[in-house]
């Protein structure tokens, strides 16, 4: 493990050297190049702000949905919808709201950026918490109930610890996702204006518009360093910490002594530190404890109390439900009664966008399956290749946009063709890593005895692929595909319109969204925006419900390899 990390840093070093070479050949022209460290910190601060909000939200939302069945009937479908919505499409609305609320001051812009990044992080973390809590083994639930562990103590001792592994794992995914949207949102054109916040994303974007390759290299290098540093200082220690909370330790895995907190070694520690840090809040917790204890007692002692509460509960649920459904129906009716002029372009847009994503998906599969099969089976290959892939994957596709665009235009004869190629490439870069890392995980999860059995019976080459490898990776292939397509849909809005080189967007859903937000005056074309968003949600939802989920269900019945 230590060796792997050393190689990772080595590679980061090589990436840096490459960046320096580019910078010597084409010196950065940006005036703010010297302040790039500070710009990175700005970006990082936005990321952490958004992450902390997402964390609190995820824990509250996930816990509530997992413990309150009635609430869950609304909260889960809502989360499902939120997860499938192309987040960037809502950005103009968010921007509009906050900029107006704060009278155009930078605070409004900052808040909208943080809100956008938050929406890219929160849903999958909330799902993680929900899943983890609902899959707590019955015997642990029983033990908690039997020993009177209720209220706050139950959250602290049972639900939160059980959620930690999934929460940390999903946090890492969310964090990566967050970079993608942060970079995209630091420069944003909407309502005929361009809004810019100082940061690493806007630095790269500005360099791209100027064609300043030295600055692009500098910005990308800084981004890689920041991403890897956060990974080394925050996520790897946290993953180690989270291992102590895992409920299932696969047999044969080394049991290491889990020592909570000790893994965040870079935080200076002194005896009693956690005790001292938590002291100010402890009276509050005790008050909460006491209140929940008393409430429990009231619940058990007076049979009428729960009934009244249940009625209030139900009434509130109904009110919210009616409001949500009513608003949705009114909105939809308005939309379909007065469709925007461009409504006729929607079918073609769906077909074109889908075709681009399908092409990108095919390209991604073509290289990720063989690479995953190779890397997943050879420890030696994994040690060398994984760090390379991690460095590449750490760069969000939005930051690579200037590079990809430049390459695509240079590589093709006609600009029209170049833009199409760039669009597919950006989709590819948004989708491929999810597939790759899921597939590698799938290949790794093939149990040792199964591989040995295959070797003993002489399964080799094509037979091995057909009988062992491909069936074993079906579940992770499907999970990877779902995430990859989600990322692909989300990337459409940045991949179908390049304001720096073209005036009309490409045909596609993303293009239509861009048309609705960037190109139509000060207020934007809300009708077209909503119509396109609804279409996109419909397509994504249909694909999830009709294709992926049934496949996943079947795959889990047939292809799941049990840990033995």
């Amino acid at each position, binding site marked *: 493990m230590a060796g792997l990390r050393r190689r990772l840093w080595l590679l980061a070093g090589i990436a840096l050297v490459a960046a320096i070479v580019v910078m010597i050949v084409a010196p950065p022209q940006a005036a703010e190049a010297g302040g790039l460290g500070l710009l990175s910190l700005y970006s990082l601060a936005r990321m952490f702000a958004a992450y902390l909000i997402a964390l609190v939200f995820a824990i509250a939302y996930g816990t509530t949905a997992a413990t309150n069945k009635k609430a869950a009937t609304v909260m889960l479908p809502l989360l499902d919808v939120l997860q499938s919505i192309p987040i960037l499409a809502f950005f103009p609305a968010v921007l509009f709201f906050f900029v107006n609320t704060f009278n155009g001051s930078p605070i409004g812009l900052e808040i909208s950026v943080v809100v956008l990044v938050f929406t890219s992080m929160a849903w999958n973390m909330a799902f993680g918490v929900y899943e983890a809590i609902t899959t707590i083994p019955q015997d642990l639930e029983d033990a908690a*109930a*039997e*020993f*009177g*562990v209720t209220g706050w*103590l139950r959250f602290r*001792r049972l639900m939160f610890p059980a959620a930690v592994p999934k929460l940390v794992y999903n946090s890492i995914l969310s964090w990566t996702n967050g970079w993608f949207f942060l970079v995209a949102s630091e420069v944003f054109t909407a309502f005929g204006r361009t809004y810019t916040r100082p940061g690493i994303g806007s630095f790269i974007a500005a360099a791209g518009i100027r064609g300043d390759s030295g600055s692009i290299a500098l910005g990308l290098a800084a981004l890689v360093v920041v991403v890897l540093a956060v990974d080394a200082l925050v996520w790897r220690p946290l993953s180690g910490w989270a291992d102590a*909370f895992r409920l299932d330790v696969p047999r044969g895995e080394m049991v290491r*002594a889990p020592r909570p907190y000790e893994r965040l070694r870079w935080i200076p520690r002194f005896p009693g530190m956690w005790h001292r840090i938590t002291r100010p809040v402890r009276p509050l917790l005790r008050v909460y404890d006491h209140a929940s204890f008393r409430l429990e007692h009231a619940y058990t002692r007076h049979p009428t109390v729960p009934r009244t509460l249940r009625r209030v509960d139900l009434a509130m649920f109904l009110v919210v439900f009616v409001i949500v459904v009513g608003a949705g129906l009114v909105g939809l009716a308005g939309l379909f009664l007065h469709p925007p002029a461009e409504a006729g372009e929607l079918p073609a847009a769906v077909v074109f966008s889908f075709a681009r994503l399908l092409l990108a998906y095919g390209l991604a599969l073509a290289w990720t399956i063989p690479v995953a099969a190779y890397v997943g089976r050879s420890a030696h290959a994994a040690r060398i290749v994984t760090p390379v892939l991690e460095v590449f994957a750490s760069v969000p596709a939005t930051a690579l946009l200037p590079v990809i665009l430049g390459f695509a235009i240079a590589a093709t004869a006609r600009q029209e063709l170049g833009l199409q190629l760039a669009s597919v490439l950006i989709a590819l870069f948004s989708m491929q890593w999810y597939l790759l890392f899921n597939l590698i995980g799938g290949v790794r999860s093939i149990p040792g005895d199964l591989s040995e059995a295959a070797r003993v019976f002489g399964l080799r080459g094509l037979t091995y692929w057909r009988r062992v490898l491909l069936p074993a990776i079906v579940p992770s292939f499907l999970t990877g595909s779902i995430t990859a397509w989600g990322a692909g849909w989300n990337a459409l809005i940045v991949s179908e319109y390049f304001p720096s080189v073209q005036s009309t967007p490409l045909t596609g859903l993303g293009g239509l969204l861009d048309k609705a937000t960037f190109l139509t005056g000060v207020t934007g074309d809300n009708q077209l925006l909503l119509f396109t968003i609804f279409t996109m949600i419909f397509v994504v939802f249909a694909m999830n419900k009709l294709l992926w989920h049934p496949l996943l269900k079947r795959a889990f019945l047939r292809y799941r390899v049990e840990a033995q």
Partner: protein
Amino acid sequence: MTRKHVLVRVKDISRSYFENGKEFKALEHIQFDLYDQDFMCIVGPSGCGKSTLLRIIVGLDRPTSGEVLFEGKPIEAKNPQVAMVFQSFALFPWLTVEQNVEIGLEARHVPPDVRGQKAKKYIEAVGLTGFENAFPRELSGGMKQRVGLARALATDPLLLCMDEPFSSLDALTAQNLRDEILELWSDPDLPPRAVLMVTHSIEEAVYLADRVLVLSGRPGRQVAELEIDLPRPRNRREPEFYGWVDDIYSLIV
């Protein structure tokens, strides 16, 4: 024999499950009393609902009809005078041995220093001194079940319920633990005042119990309530011992 005091009264309990509108009977008309100083085993073939019965008695599940009285009052899950040992140990993997043992006390808002003392006492009683700060996954199965036992005893229960506590252990460890439980049981200074244990092993029941409740399979019906009057320590090789085992075996089959 005159009995002192009825601790638990199980009154005509039935439990059904409903699936697709079809009724599935798990337990039918179970009725017995558990007395002070009683060590009782519930035996039956797998699927006879004996674990369900235990879950109902501790209040984790509700009967379809009938009721369970604990000291004359209806039972509830958080009754602090009943403690439970689980077949799968059900230890919290993220808590240390000591924290696991303290969990029932923590739930009752016992101050930390008192908790610590109690936990130490019972960790010592089950022979795990030195492992206070270990995590469950660092322990063997037998040690885990000792933690489960200490956790149950630490709450000073009047009634200790055990659901197949030795089924996940290897034969040797299980036998050691059985003897240790008998030793703890014979110590008058230690709780509980009565033990109710579910097992599928007839031999185990005859080895441990004062009384055995025999259930038949699907739906669980009460076949017999037997008093095992063998002197302790019991010897598995004696003909009387085998007489009891054979009797119970013929009742089930």
